[in-house]
């Protein structure tokens, strides 16, 4: 069982087996866990159900909190009324905001890879499902690609915003979602790797500076990084390659994430948006 220390460790078995990255990662997980296809697959599929439910529950008009003001509802309404185009990106952003908004209100979500980034992958995949009519099984399979591709970041860097900045959470989430979308759209394993690497480049140096607990600007960042993931997947599926080889991008991403996380550590005091006059008006007890 390959330990996915590098992107190549995830991609190469897919090439050798002549299957999609998602299928290859699932086969590896079956081998590692000793569990059958049905058990492994249905566990992931259950998580898709939780993601979908969160995107629906959060989009109601009445869903509000201290730092969440029915954003998902507003955006759904704007799409419905033609203020925004009813296209893949608009719907992905809306769903990403919904799921992460739900997370900010202590709703039930799936850590993808964390709570702070939990809207990005669902946003992209649920919107892609609507756009192209994929089945739940097809979506579930590409989730394995996302999960497998995230492992090198966990092993070489961190998935924790406290340690590696928002880059570690939303940056990772976007890279995972880009990989999943490329895999879903029948990209080659190499294209999946490039989608991942291109997405990584969009968050080099992104800090973790939330007001209160994982609401602002987290919800909107999830929205924006869903669009990043789609953009990266579009480029890779066009045959565009990351100039820097994916493994080198991933290692650099991890290095920067740890450096920036240390420099902007919350232990050292307030960071970024936490220093704004608006932040000063908030109840100090909100801040971690």
């Amino acid at each position, binding site marked *: 069982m390959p330990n996915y220390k590098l992107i190549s460790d995830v991609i190469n078995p897919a090439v050798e087996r002549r299957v999609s990255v998602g299928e290859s990662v699932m086969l590896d*997980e079956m081998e590692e866990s000793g569990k059958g296809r049905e058990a492994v697959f249905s566990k992931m599929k259950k998580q898709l159900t939780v993601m979908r439910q969160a995107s629906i529950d959060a989009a109601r008009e009445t869903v509000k909190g201290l730092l969440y003001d029915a954003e998902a509802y507003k955006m759904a309404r704007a799409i419905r009324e033609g203020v925004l185009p009813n296209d893949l990106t608009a719907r992905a952003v809306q769903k990403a905001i919904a799921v992460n908004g739900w*997370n900010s*209100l*202590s709703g039930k979500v799936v*850590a993808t*890879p*964390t709570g702070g980034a939990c809207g990005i992958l669902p946003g992209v995949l649920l919107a892609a499902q609507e756009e192209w009519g994929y089945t739940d099984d097809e979506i579930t399979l590409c989730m394995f690609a996302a999960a497998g591709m995230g492992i090198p970041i966990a092993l070489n860097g961190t998935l*924790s915003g406290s340690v590696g900045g928002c880059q570690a959470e939303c940056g990772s989430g976007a890279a995972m979602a880009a990989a999943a979308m490329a895999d879903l759209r029948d990209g080659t394993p190499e294209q999946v790797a490039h989608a991942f690497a291109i997405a990584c480049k969009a968050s080099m140096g992104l800090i973790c500076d939330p007001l209160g607990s994982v609401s602002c600007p987290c919800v909107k960042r999830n929205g924006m990084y869903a669009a990043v993931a789609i953009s990266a997947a579009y480029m890779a599926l066009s045959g565009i390659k990351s100039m820097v080889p994916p493994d080198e991008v991933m290692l650099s991403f991890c290095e920067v994430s740890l450096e920036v996380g240390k420099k902007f550590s919350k*232990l050292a005091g307030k960071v970024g948006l936490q220093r704004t006059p608006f932040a000063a008006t908030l109840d100090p007890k909100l*801040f971690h």
Partner: protein
Amino acid sequence: MRVFELIGPIMFGPSSSHTAGACRVGRAVWQILGEDVREAHLELYGSFSDRGGRGLNKALVAGLLGYDTDDDRLLRCMDHIKEKGIRLTWENVHLENAHMNTVRYTVKGDQRQVRVVGVSVGGGMIEIREINGAPVSITGDYHTAILSCENGQAAATAARELLKREPGVTVESSSSADLKTQLVLIKTPKPLPDKTKYELSRLPGILWMTGHKMFE
């Protein structure tokens, strides 16, 4: 590192490290105690500190009741603590060289007491780093049987002999600096058969046996 650590666990927001991971640390402590918790004292460090009286992060407590990260009872766990008459106290502490998300639990049941240091490393993943002063590393990626013994080295040797035909077994020993705590940790990809666990508990010098289950 496994796929369901990257996508998963199912949790209540807002933070996989502060809700899901916190709950899992508490639940690990509950498993290690091996009986119902009657009293718990939590020492909080870093971003787990209780700042300005906001109230203790309830996720740190939910696991002590055996609740998992997606258990609907988690949100009302503080009420359940009161209903069960569990004595709960907490304080902010400084721990040298500790991870940002560290908590030290001292929990008492009817029969015994344990002191466990746990860390929420991110994404819902955890590491138990100390039990009764003995350094350990338990992450939930495998099943862990924990034996408290009079002589850790001897017990480890005996355990290795007993388990020599079990596949994929790792046996480690650890002790506290003052040697008052001596532990043997047995890590396996599948749970040990009941017969084997019984035989382990009957090895000479074993004081008590507990464990932590692999995350599914």
